[in-house]
């Protein structure tokens, strides 16, 4: 994407006023999406965003400047701005020898987005619309969306590290609105992977649309969710958000370093039930949060964060790892070249356990079964977190019964983790997610087997 010699000169300029660290991040992103709503393909959209961000660190101060001008002059101007921002003392020119990092791509791409006819992208949408509406007369509205992106990055720093990556993602999502006596209800599900158009060789578009329609139709019979604290069984696949919020963010090294995490100082101690082993893995082939290298050029890694309930490690970005004199973990990510990187999750999941998922439900006298979770959020300093349930049912006498209306569940991370008393043998990854932190969104995956938390607070309206 950029000549080695240009990179060297730009990094040299960045360090001209002194500095411990300089980095150039170049990004070229092409995206396209098409949306069908109300029976019409609204528009096909496409765009291109290309630019570079230059980071200079002097002591504990980071200066950053970004530009869409990828000429050498443009980049050096940004380097000057970043250097000025970091306010280093004058030190003179430096030469840096670059070494290319060889990081394996998690998976190959069979069909690149640019090789697909636009007509084919749009044709998928009508199939979803037809299939969803045919599922029931109460389905009054269908929205379908297909999106693809290709993000090429190059990262180089003055340690001599030079890395590149080429990330292709394809996404398909359907939403349905059903109308009945109790009002309107919605169903929603997306499927997405870090692969190309081959996604649609494996995905039954019509069945996906029908499934979403059934979600909406089922919720027409939904009753208000209970209000109060009780056992909750999380279904496999859709429930990973729970861990992303309950402990994921709290294990990011920046929150730890600032004293803003309840998991600070707890490495080596029991923070969860011994049934819980939690992993963050950027190498997971095809998953939404995978990559060859992170946005600081570090190869992706599989990191065990909690093992049999004991906290083993936090997640790090380049600077924080360097500050603590420890190995990098491949978690330095940024939304785009216009943003500074920080510690972020990749694909976060709990390993399968031994229990039969049917037994977990059967042994729950009264509680809630959450089949699909929506988003969530957490206050890492207090540990309080919430997540939404978009498809949930009452459990009565060990049986899944009435569908429930949507709502949030709330709990406290360390407490909830210790209240997990059964983990199923049916692991599955969930739908693609977008994690927001400090104003930046990055794509993430999560996964979970069926499991039970003996006490979680359900935010329903039924006493």
């Amino acid at each position, binding site marked *: 994407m950029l000549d080695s010699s240009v990179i060297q000169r730009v990094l040299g300029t960045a360090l001209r006023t002194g500095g411990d660290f300089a980095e150039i991040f170049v990004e070229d992103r092409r995206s396209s999406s098409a949306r*069908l*709503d109300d*029976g*019409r393909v*609204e*528009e*096909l*959209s*496409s*765009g*291109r*965003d*290309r630019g570079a961000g230059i980071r200079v660190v002097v002591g*504990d*101060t*980071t*200066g*950053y*400047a*970004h530009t*869409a001008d990828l000429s050498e002059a443009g980049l050096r101007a*940004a380097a000057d701005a970043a250097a000025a*921002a*970091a306010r280093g003392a004058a030190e003179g020119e430096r030469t840096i020898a670059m070494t290319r990092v060889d990081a394996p791509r998690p998976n190959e791409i069979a069909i690149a987005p640019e090789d697909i006819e*636009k007509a084919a*992208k749009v044709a998928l949408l009508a199939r979803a619309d037809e299939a969803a509406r045919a599922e029931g007369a109460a389905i*009054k*509205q269908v*929205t379908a969306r297909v999106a693809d992106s290709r993000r090429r990055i190059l990262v180089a720093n003055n340690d001599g590290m030079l890395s590149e990556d080429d990330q292709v993602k394809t996404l398909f999502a359907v939403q349905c609105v059903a109308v009945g006596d109790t009002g*309107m*209800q*919605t169903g929603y599900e997306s499927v997405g992977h870090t692969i190309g158009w081959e996604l649609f060789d494996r995905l039954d578009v019509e069945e996906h649309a029908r499934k979403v329609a059934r979600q909406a139709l089922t919720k027409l019979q939904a009753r208000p969710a209970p*209000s*109060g*604290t009780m056992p909750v069984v999380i279904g496999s696949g859709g429930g990973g958000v729970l861990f992303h919020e309950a402990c994921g963010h709290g294990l990011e090294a920046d929150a730890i370093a600032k*004293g*803003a995490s*309840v998991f600070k100082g707890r490495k080596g101690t029991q923070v969860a039930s011994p049934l819980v082993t939690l992993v963050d893995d950027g190498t997971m082939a095809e998953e939404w949060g995978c990559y060859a290298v992170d946005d600081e050029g570090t190869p992706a890694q599989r990191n065990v964060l909690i093992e049999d309930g004991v906290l083993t490690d936090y997640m790090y970005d380049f600077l924080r790892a360097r500050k603590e004199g420890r190995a990098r973990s491949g978690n330095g990510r940024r939304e785009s070249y*216009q943003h*500074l990187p920080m510690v972020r999750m990749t694909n976060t999941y709990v390993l399968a356990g031994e229990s039969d998922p049917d037994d977990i439900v059967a042994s729950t006298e009264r509680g809630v079964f959450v089949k699909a979770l*929506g988003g*969530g*959020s957490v206050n890492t*300093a*207090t540990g*309080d*977190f*919430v997540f*939404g349930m978009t498809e949930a049912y009452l459990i009565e006498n060990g049986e899944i019964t009435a569908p429930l209306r*949507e*709502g*949030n569940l*709330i709990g*406290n991370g360390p407490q909830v983790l210790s209240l997990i008393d059964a983990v199923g043998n049916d692991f599955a990854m969930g739908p693609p997610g977008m994690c927001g932190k400090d104003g930046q969104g990055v794509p993430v995956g999560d996964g979970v087997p069926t499991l039970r938390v003996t006490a979680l*607070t*359900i*935010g*329903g*309206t039924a*006493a």
Partner: protein
Amino acid sequence: MELEQLLAIGDRVVGWAEDGEQVEAVVAHAASSEIRAYDGDVEQLSSAETQGVGIRVVRDHRVGFAYAGTLDDDVLAETLAEARDNAGFGTADEYVGLAEPDGVAVADLDLFRASLVDVPTSRKVDLALALERAARAADSRISAVESADYADSISAAAVVTTTGIRAAARETGAYVSASVLAVDGDETQTGFGFSVGRHPDELDIDVASRDAAERATRMLGATKPSSDRLTVVFDPFVTAQFLGIIGSTLSAEAVLKGRSPFADRVGDEIGSVFITFVDDPTNPDAFSATQTDAEGLATRRNALITNGVLQGFLHNTYTARRLGTVSTGSAVRGGFKSTPSAGARALALTPGVQPQEEIVASIEHGILVQSVQGLHSGVNPVSGDFSTGAEGLCIENGTVGAPLREFTIASTLQRMLQDIVAVGNDVEWLPMRAAGLTIAVGDVTVSGS
């Protein structure tokens, strides 16, 4: 970049339109700085310029869209060609088309502080450092300032079309925000505070640091309440978030597509008599004020609910044509990379006469909610289900008491509007699409232990 330059670029793009097609170019430019102070020094300092163009092409009643993150001439031509190509794949829709001048005068809003561009970086750094010092010193229980930020932006955008639209506007904005940790023994609580304006001189470090410290310290000792059904009082910041969601249900796009619970309720009483609710982007007090909408039409004051009765919805050109009315100047978009939808920009509830203390004094048993968590995951604006995490203080016999945490509040949007029993006089113009003030909502389910 000057407005004339942006308009000139728009003119150029639109000048390349072929016969039988409509072209719209949105040309944007922004310069911004962000400074984060930590531990008495600058932790991060970023400054940059962004620019880009978003182009819609309408041919044979089909629309295509493309964008690019630069304003280079060859990229402009490429982007127009891409949008034109994309137009071939949309469904032909007789109502599709760009906005046309509607004769509504553009409000003259003073949203631009020319001197911001001359404010030296050192002054901005000083503000961030001063904020951190003030937040740290605001209370002895404040153990750390997790972040103390200063940010500003100078932004400009032009909309030019082949249908006669040619509008441009610019604005400046600045804010400081602090996030603090308060500690008591083993317990940590957090609080945030901020101050917004159009220029750093308008920012109030004292308010931002005091709010952050108060919000954090008053939560110390918080316990989990029992499940209950009671009246909740929303702090202004919480009300603003709630009103933003109500505003989204009144978008004509939601109505048109069968996703609004209020679709056929114009003329009905959908809220309590205390509710008079407008969207007015021409109000210069609103941080989100703007004189032209995302299609280049003049914004205007739109009455949404008057004394509880639904008046109408917010339209852009497309929704208006579909529903046989005219645009209310409510086209909105998430920047130049997206196409316009219809929505609110600057919502406000007409204030009542009581300060928060008086509203609290009238409640025997309730909760003052200081912040909510998980609005995006627990609120469904189609079904109306509303369920969020919350923290706040209990209200007993008209007095605010012990802090409460780790609970949820739930109801439905439809019921909440009807159950608003008091509206305060403490309007706060927040950096969001809705102004905040205190409201009291009855019959809300609290889920705790």
